[in-house]
């Protein structure tokens, strides 16, 4: 289990995150949602072990994150940051292979082939990474983090992703989340930052809503996704509609926004 307790992190005496608690079980997908500047990325970095916080603890399977050696930690959790820049001419396959640095896999070649198949990057294998499109790069990085934790181990593993769908089109977004969904059965817990609320509703088991460095609400999707809460968190009128086909929720910007606009702007919208 991934457990964060009483996380507090401040820069120059300004609290970026305050008193945050979170629990993620293997086999779950948890989405972290919140407006820009809510502290999502900082929280993410604390969870990944990248930055240490003065107060609070992060445990992976009962081990304090900073007491694990980087190599041990890498066997338990993989992290996909939002942006990674590569300054040297590596091929896509070489990038994926990097995920195996801490691995003791007996069949690394089969593993790489399997994952590149799963992430639909097999055809990019020999291509220069820096010449790939944004979406292709993101899928190659996904393949890299997947090889790191794919193989079954006697302990649960975790995957942390910071906006894994940010440069993907709608079909690729769903493709990625379907891959993540399949990971659940491999004793892997998934934590991801998302901006697209509908993706979170559709794929996440749990949601944590962040605002101003605190967790406003956390829990099952239906319990968290309430109009009042969302309005408050995003400071934007939000409407929840029932999907006529699946019965699930759809988030949309509320029509109130139109009624609140001045008449001149209304006229402008009218002309559209």
């Amino acid at each position, binding site marked *: 289990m991934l457990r964060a307790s009483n996380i507090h992190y401040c820069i120059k005496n300004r609290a970026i995150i305050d008193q945050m608690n979170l629990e993620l079980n293997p086999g779950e997908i948890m989405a972290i949602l919140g407006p820009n500047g809510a502290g999502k990325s900082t929280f993410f970095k604390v969870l990944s072990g990248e930055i240490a916080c003065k107060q609070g603890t992060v445990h992976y399977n009962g081990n304090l994150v900073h007491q694990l050696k*980087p190599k041990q930690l890498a066997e338990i959790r993989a*992290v996909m940051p939002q942006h990674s820049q590569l300054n040297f*001419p590596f091929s896509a396959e*070489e*990038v994926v292979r990097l995920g195996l*640095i*801490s691995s003791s896999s007996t069949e690394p070649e*089969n593993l790489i*082939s399997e994952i590149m198949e799963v992430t639909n990057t097999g055809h990019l294998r020999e291509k220069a990474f820096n010449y790939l499109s944004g979406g292709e790069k993101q899928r190659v990085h996904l393949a890299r983090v997947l090889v790191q934790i794919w193989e079954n181990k006697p302990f649960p593993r975790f995957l942390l992703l910071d906006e894994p769908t940010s440069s993907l089109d709608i079909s690729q977004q769903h493709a990625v989340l379907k891959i993540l969904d399949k990971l659940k059965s491999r004793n892997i817990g998934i934590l991801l930052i998302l901006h697209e609320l509908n993706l979170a509703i559709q794929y996440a088991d749990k949601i944590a809503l962040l605002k101003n460095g605190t967790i406003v609400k956390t829990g099952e999707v239906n319990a968290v996704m309430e109009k009042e809460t969302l309005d408050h968190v995003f400071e934007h009128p939000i409407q929840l509609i029932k999907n006529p086909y699946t019965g699930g929720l759809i988030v949309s910007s509320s029509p109130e926004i139109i009624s609140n606009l001045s008449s001149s702007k209304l006229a402008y919208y009218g002309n559209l």
Partner: protein
Amino acid sequence: MLISTLHTDKSKSQNLILLVFAISLTLLIFLSLSLGAYTISISQSFSILMEQLGIHIGLHSIQQENVLLQIRLPRIIMATMVGGGLGIAGASLQGMFRNPLVEPGLIGVSSGSALFAVIFMVLIPVTSTLFEPLQLIGLPFFAFFGGLIHVIGVYKLSKSQGKTESGTLILAGVAINALAGALIGLVLFFADDTALRSFTFWSLGDLGGSVWNKIPISLVLIGVPSLLLLFQHQALNALALGEQEAFHMGVNVQRVKLKLLIYCALIVGTGVSMVGMVGFVGLVVPHLIRILFGADHRLVLPGSFLLGAILMNFADLVARIIVIPAEMPIGVITALVGAPFFIWLIFNLNHSKTYA
């Protein structure tokens, strides 16, 4: 199954490339043993070397044997170690700083080593009885500390919010180099004529002083850290994605960086103290390897050592035969090749996305 063959093929082709480099280096060394102000044919060189192994062929004169064994061979070993060391140190530093423009000279390792070496030369006069033994061991270590202090300084200066910015890195390197240059000038102002003259030759790079008693030290202080660098190929590959990413993949980033800096400072410090400032080998060589064979450090590191050694031996050969019986300082030759390449590189960086 097919894929695993593919990867084995890749390892095989990497080994093949290294083998070709090694053979070229050996051939070049034989050529370099034979050419120069004093003529020794390749077969005579072979005969002399065999003689040392106890096999008598007897094609050579005793004079040829002396020239080859006492003058050319130590010089060639020195060129091989220093050139190879600069190549692999350049490759490692470029990898660590994630910047293809980095070079031991640019980021202050060389000038730091030079400053400390000059201080050493002035502090311990050539005429003193302590000079010989101290110079052998003390000078390389002194230069190593100078290089290490400078490179750590540049690294700290160029780092902001956990990332090294290329622009700041270059600026920090320029600033530190300027400071070291000024301090060297200051030290030299108080130096006597002998120290001044030996500095002038040394600052241009000079393999002429390569005598046998310097060879064991250069073999150890350049050879051992170079071998240790080879083990860092995976960590350097991971660092190419960034320090955070390398950490996420299980690299102990702080420890790896410290190791890399110490090894590189040892190599460059020893090189600088032995033959002086030789520019551009550390920059050009890793680039050529990457352009030709890709960025995998499993190949880039040993490849840079071998190609660095080849380039250095070639430059030495040119330096020795271009103005017979005099010789050109080797730093002049490497800079003559390196500087245009550097210009080409800067030009292409602006137009290529490969390094974007």
